[in-house]
């Protein structure tokens, strides 16, 4: 049981690796992959060939999970691609500081105050709902050393 964590992926580096290799053909839509050194979610995947009897190459289209920017790559199907470690964790919003930082509490009660209010509409909505006294859950996306709030949800889970 205990070996789940340590058997699988030799990262090669000192252990601080942010990605692991995976055979290109095993990637699938909605999974993650590094494209042009950015962590991306695969939104389209197709195989193409160099000729009728040629070998397949995989054509990947991904969206940067942080910026939403689109990246593409072509890779021979037997090669390995880097897959980013991607985490999404939910935190409860406990406060918003004057300089726009969020105070977030994780499931086990740890507090953190290092994330800013997200830009765009969702940030404003977050602020409004918080000011209105609603209980908010924030989903924090973390990958390749970057972190940001990617989704918010008015907490109905608690009142069930």
């Amino acid at each position, binding site marked *: *049981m205990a070996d*789940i964590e340590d058997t699988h*992926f030799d990262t090669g580096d000192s252990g601080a690796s942010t990605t692991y290799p995976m055979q290109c053909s095993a990637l699938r839509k909605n999974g993650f992959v590094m494209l042009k050194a950015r962590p991306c979610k695969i*939104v389209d995947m197709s195989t193409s060939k160099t*000729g*009728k009897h040629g070998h*397949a190459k995989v054509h990947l289209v991904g969206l*940067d999970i942080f910026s939403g920017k689109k990246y593409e790559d072509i890779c021979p199907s037997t090669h390995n691609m880097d897959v980013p470690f991607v985490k999404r964790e*939910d935190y409860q919003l406990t406060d918003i500081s004057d300089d726009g930082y969020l105070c977030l509490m994780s499931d086990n009660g740890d507090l953190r105050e290092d994330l800013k209010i997200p830009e765009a509409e*969702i940030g404003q909505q977050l602020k409004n709902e918080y000011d209105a006294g609603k209980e908010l859950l924030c989903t924090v996306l973390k990958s390749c050393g970057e972190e940001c709030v990617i989704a918010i949800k008015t907490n109905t889970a608690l009142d069930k």
Partner: protein
Amino acid sequence: MEQASPSLVTNDQRAAAEAVFMSFRKTNMPYSICRYIFDCSKVDFVLFETAGTLRDALIRDWILLSQDQKNELRQYLFQFIMHDGNMAPFVRERILQVIAIMIKRGSVEDGGQERSNILDEVEKLIFNGDLKKQILGCSIILALMQEYSTTVKSTDVGLTWESHYSAKRQFEAGDLRRIFIFSTRALHEIQNLPQPLSPDILTVLKHLLNICESVLVWGFISANHILLTISLLHSLSLLDVQLSSISGSIWTDTNARMEYMKNYLENFIKLVSTVKILDRESIGISTIVKRIISGYTPSAFMQFPPALVKSFLENITHLTCQFAEGAATEENLSQDDQMFFEAFNNILCPWVPIIGNSEGNSNESFPEELCKSASIQILNTYIKCHISPPKGTKISDNEFNENEEDDRIVNKEQLQYIGIFGRRIPEHSLPLLGALIEDQIKEMRSIIEHVHSSGSCQWPESFQQKIDAVNEDIHWLFLIAGHILTVDSEGEPSMIPSEIMHHSIEQSKNVNMDLTIKFLTNQMLVMDVPGSERAVDDVIKLVSIAFHLCELEKKLIEAKMESLCSPLLSGTIVWFLREFSQAYLMPNETYYNDLSMTLLQAFGQHTEAANWVLNYLLNKVEHNIKSPLYVDVSLIGDTVGLLISMVDIRHKAEIVINCEGFWKLFELQNHMREDQLVPEVKEGLYKAFSLAADAFVAKDKQKDYCTRVITPTLDKFRNILSNDNFRKTYDNDAVRLEIMDILHKCIGMASGAVINTTPTIFDVLHPMLNEFSALIGLYHNYQIIVHLIIQLFVEFSKKMLCFLSVGESDKFYMSCYQMVDMYARYNINRVSLDSDAEDQCYQDLYVFLELLTHVMSKEVLDLSSDGKTTTGKTAGDVCVYGLQVILPLMTIDLLKFPALCSQYYKYAGYMCEMVPLKLCIENVDIFKGVLTTIELGLTMFGHEITPMCTDFLQSAASFIYRHENCTMHEAYNLLKPFLKFLMKLILSCQINSDALSSTGHALYTLICCYPEEFQQISMQFINDQTDASVIDRLHNAFTLLTTGIDFNGQHAMKCRFKNNFDMD
């Protein structure tokens, strides 16, 4: 108005101009203004629009206009086109259409009197007029015929189908015949003119031939009106395809018919043997052949002189080959127009009855020798066109088009026909294909030799072309061989074709059985074993070649020379092996009258050789799932298909589950790392493992087997869940990959459940289902896992639910509730910044609806054997609950995804029909929510959705109408506004005519529910009008609509009402 034609206008101006035209089209009584425009304007587009307005107005106001007004208008239009010689063709055609509509509408009232007078005039024009008038005359006739016929071009002139039908019948009875007579007379006159004809005369000729053709293709209602001077026309236009099929009640005298056909055939042969057929003519010619053969049975043909039959067959053989070559040239040149391709496909079809009856009475079939020689020629030509020089003519494809479809799919029909030819002459086709493939293998060997000795895997482009050409040739030869050896059985169990069986029996006299088996199990080739050519069975030779190529592929991959292999060819061979194994491997002997001992000893049940073949194929599957060539999803599909073909028939599965190769495959996938097998392979393998469970009839054995299959996966799952750290490590990538791996295997397992195995498979998988529905909460941030979990539920509902007993269904429903609950808990009120957030919602909701739709079908189709009824939750409860969860997530933007939109409305309608009580009365809040979407759906998402919404209203209304004390329920009031809404939509013509018939039923049922409101609304609509004539018409319309109708909810009344509604 005229500012619309120049292109230098802004969009606003254009929109304004368009608005002018749109409102102009709806102008009331626009006749004088139209005439004014005709007289003054010279702009084609304006004239065109004006004619359109006139047409619409005439259809609308027909009964309001007096006879004089109509006559005068028609005369005016006649004069107008007669005098303006430079009118644009599209304007002329539209005006002619208006005239034709007027004549037709008029003929409904006067029985065709006026039309006869007009035809008199036209006839004069054609015989006495100058060229322009002749052409005009012809055009009028063509326009008129178009209106009377039933085509997409004819206009909806506001007549019901019945009146159109009777007008057409009346037209056919007299004037159509008359038109035909005088156009043939005119043709006759042209025939007597000195050759060559002037261009002007040719134009008239073309028009006249058009008219004749239209008469000949006329879809007659009663087909005995024309027995005419056909031979005259025949000599004029031999190419007229229609003549080849003149048959039926026209020919009352068989002798005359045969005489005519004999004459026709002679002329046809003369034509095709003297003229080189061009590509654009080829389709017509192929259709003639098709018609001739479909009109005359082989026994009828045998009454013609033998020389004529022979000559005819030889000529069509030649044509078939010519079209095959033409199609190949088109492909070599990558032409867009593929007329020869189409003609070739077309001309193959009549060959089936020609060469079909090889065992029957000789009087009822074409001469054996002719058929064989034709088959050989056609097959040879086809092969030649698909392989490269020196034996063939195919030019290697330099340009590769990514989007090109699979040869197997594009040429499916062709290959099936070619298979028929090949089976007609197996003694020729099978050895030929074997020899040709072996030739290519020889070529391949020299290529490998060359690469090997050069020691490098880099080679020039020209060398690569050589490799590709060899692979391409083998690919095509196997496609042809596969279609000869097997017949696409489309769902029926595949069998050994009788021709092949007979050939094998025939051959067995010379076959050396020991050598044959040795050949097969050692993958030998004829060219390597001197003297084996006649000693080995032809079928087995081909199978052995396929095995040989599999071995070659393995060796090349081992030697790191896989760049010489073609994934496409590899896939084709797997396809060939699958087709072969379905038909030949372990055949059910009771299906056959005759059996070849050779085939039986090599492939029969419980023979050593068959067992060897089975293991060989299982080994091939194992090899492929690890092979670097197999990444393309379609190739994987073929490999999985090969495996499934070995387990989806019980008597084969019984043998397979005891095969060493089967368990080796199982162990192999169990010990591979999660990312080494692609998801499709995992699902495919587990589907096959699951299907194989059907081999056990005894339940305990079946259970043991299923447990054995699922235990490694189940153990892995339990280990993960029981890990103390799971709450912390669940979102590690490694753990997530394992969870996904487990899900893929479970999905595969569930998808292989069949009626006999469902209780067992449900039993072993269900405990995991509950765990997964809980995991949906934990993994809510990882869409790919959430999606797979829902997918697992879909698979359960699709494959197993209908067989589940009450107790099992209850368990399943509870898991569904839990899953839906969890999903809702984490997705309602959530706002995401993800760039593909909308796409995610779309995907989730789409599978959700799929799940609910399958669950709902339990209400209709329950095949469980215990016959008990539940006291707990039903499928309907799950569905209503699911809908409640989905509704808040379903936004207008999401409904704009067409697939999701139609899935949603289909589901809503389905539900309202199946469980109206639960929806309309017991869950009125949900009903309210659904009604909001129905209101949108009536107008917003196109006319495919509208009928789904009216069907929903129909079901809801008819339920409420029948429900006791219906007015007490809130639903009664909720539905009420839809009566007015629907009436408004109908009166303002916002409902597409395709959706109208379902609207009629909905309206009737709504009126049943709300008769008083209907009266009020009708009155209100009438009172809102200011124009007296409109008030009158509306009043009449409402009266007509309700005359003789009782609003009592009876089916008969509903139909009668619908008829009134359609007429209205």
